[in-house]
């Protein structure tokens, strides 16, 4: 499975029509240790670039955007008790939400790992 990236520092990994979304290691470092993570309710329709979740450090709240259009289909409930999981493993165990994407081809317009690294 290929992972794609956004300029706003999300990653998305597609498995059929369902995608897993989180934030990049770079974003996690910039935000510092997280104290709270919350996604919008399952079933919420989102367009590409809509706020789909929020992550909070001691000091600030930051929106996490849907990389492509779709419907939210799950939240990493482990993060409710253990928000630091995002910082410890941002692109693995620290994933934030899942979504059914409207058009799987949309992800190909996002950044590749190579392109994201060169930002």
């Amino acid at each position, binding site marked *: 499975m290929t992972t794609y990236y956004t300029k706003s520092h999300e990653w998305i990994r597609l498995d059929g029509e369902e995608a897993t979304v989180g934030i990049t290691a770079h974003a996690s470092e910039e935000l*510092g*240790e997280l*104290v*709270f993570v919350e996604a919008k309710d399952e079933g919420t329709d989102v367009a590409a670039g809509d706020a789909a979740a929020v992550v909070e*450090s*001691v000091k600030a709240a930051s929106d996490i955007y849907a990389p492509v259009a779709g419907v939210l289909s799950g939240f990493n409930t482990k993060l409710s008790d253990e928000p630091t999981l995002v910082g410890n493993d941002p692109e693995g165990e620290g994933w934030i939400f899942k979504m059914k994407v409207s058009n799987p081809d949309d992800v190909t317009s996002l950044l590749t790992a190579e392109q994201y690294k060169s930002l």
Partner: protein
Amino acid sequence: MTDSLQRTPLHALNLELGAKMVPFAGYEMPLQYPAGLMAEHLHTRSQTGLFDVSHMGQIRIAARSGDVRDAALALESLIPADYAGLAKGRQRYGFLTNDTAGILDDLMVANMGDDLFVVVNASCKEQDAALIEAALSDRCVVTRQFDRALMALQGPQAQEAIAPLCPAAVDMRFMDVIETKLSGVPVTLSRSGYTGEDGYEIGCAAADAETVARALLAQPQVLPIGLGARDSLRLEAGLCLYGNDIDTTTTPIEASLAWAIQKARREGGSREGGYPGAEIVLRQAREGVSRKRVGLMAEGRAPVRAGAKLFADADGQKEIGLVTSGAFGPTVQAPVAMGYVATDYAGNDTALFAELRGKFVPVHVRAMPFVAPGFKR
């Protein structure tokens, strides 16, 4: 970072320490060091942290008569605190008020024996100095010392950390101020701070700042701490941030700061009133106010932050206040906040609701500070 930002005397050291620098009050300031905000906050509460707060303004006020009491009396024409009654070597909190009893700035004033030593907020220092000069210059010599460095050493091990460098610091009590030497450098040393912990604030000449900072950082208990943790520490301690929790639209009584107006300046006191807006403050102290600053704790883990509206009901129909500071408290391990609520809702443990991303989350009015103070009385 634009060229117009000023730098503190510890700028080079901050960069060397790996600080993430941000613009704050016209200065390039360290937001955090490599340890990060959370670790810095917890380190300050468990051991000791060193803060560069050189952006703050230091002002000396000497009476032309030569009697420091005359300078204190003159300053009382701008501030509702009892400074004429402040003993030599002691420091006291206060605030400058305007004609509508709004707060122009909050500050610390120390009686140094020969003159007064004043520390004001960075964002207000030009305005404060101009105001003090305009009001006091006939009776006093007002000297801006904005080029001096200021550091804060804060935490339960602050005394242990400073003792080898400055033995005189050990015998000081909370709010004592002395002129002494630290590592051979002349410093103005107070036993006070902005974290709720025991600790010191250290003023010195810019050229000596690095010597002092390096000597303190070489102590095993001490880590450099940025402005990010300074904010979460002061919030847990229930201390106001000027510009957020108090400003020209809030009066001392609304801000629950009546404790900083000593008996001599209150109704019936020997020097009652006599500062800008005094009639309003005296009336509010007598008759009460329609809103009060209170501490707030939210249920759950989601921080309720500055700007969040407060409601009496879970449906958001009856708005009764506003959050002015809020964050996740790393020591409390829960969201902590302060804000203004209608007086009917200001009692401890009153259940309220804060608007958070379109939802209404339960919060309770709670006594401040949120952490037990560590002052050495």
